[in-house]
């Protein structure tokens, strides 16, 4: 699955985009746990999930949203445009 990171999440993880084998993760929250177990960078980046927003296929989603059928997951801080 294509996973994107923006702003300070991109900087902490050290990548803007990667292809991730989601294993048996069924939700975004489970995917986050999978990533955190893979490398300390993820554990640091995803330490405070209340500061992180998620989009599935470019639509904002909640952490318990299912991943089935999703092609693109994005993690980012609350938006600050305008």
């Amino acid at each position, binding site marked *: 699955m294509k996973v*994107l990171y*923006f*702003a*300070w999440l*991109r900087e902490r993880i050290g990548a803007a985009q990667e292809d991730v084998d989601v294993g048996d993760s069924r939700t975004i929250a489970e995917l986050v746990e999978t990533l955190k177990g893979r490398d300390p960078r993820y554990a640091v980046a995803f330490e405070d999930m209340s500061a992180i927003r998620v*989009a599935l296929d*470019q*639509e*904002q989603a909640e952490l318990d949203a299912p991943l089935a059928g999703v092609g693109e997951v*994005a993690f*980012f*801080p*609350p*938006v*600050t*445009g*305008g």
Partner: protein
Amino acid sequence: MAVRVQEDDFDISEEVAALTDGRADIGAVVTFTGLVRDLAGAEPISAMELEHYPGMTEKALSAIEKEARDRWPLQGVTIIHRYGLLKPADRVVLVAAASAHRQAAFEAAAFLMDYLKTRAPFWKKERTPDGGRWVDARCEDDAAAERWRKR
């Protein structure tokens, strides 16, 4: 196109003309222009980096435009947001709303900005003498967007 995400600057008069030229049913056009300020709190800012999520940004802005058109009788809407490296005093964002009457144009323009601030995937990083700092989201912006929630 009513929604544009671009590195280049924009011209307010040209954008208003694009909404109004060749028609005489528009009585009111409200524009909002956002600019980079050189101070964040007490710290001077030398530049502002604007990152966005290509693809999702255009979708989010189009959804915001549609929501505004559903709520107010608008003859035209323009949303332009820049990304990349900007300097203090540079223009960042333009929204314009055209309607027969001024109340709809004012309300729609304020709504577009409130929703853009809380829903469009842009992130600002300020360059200061201490280095770079990602701008925090503001509670006031959430409150401003909240006031448009339908009761």
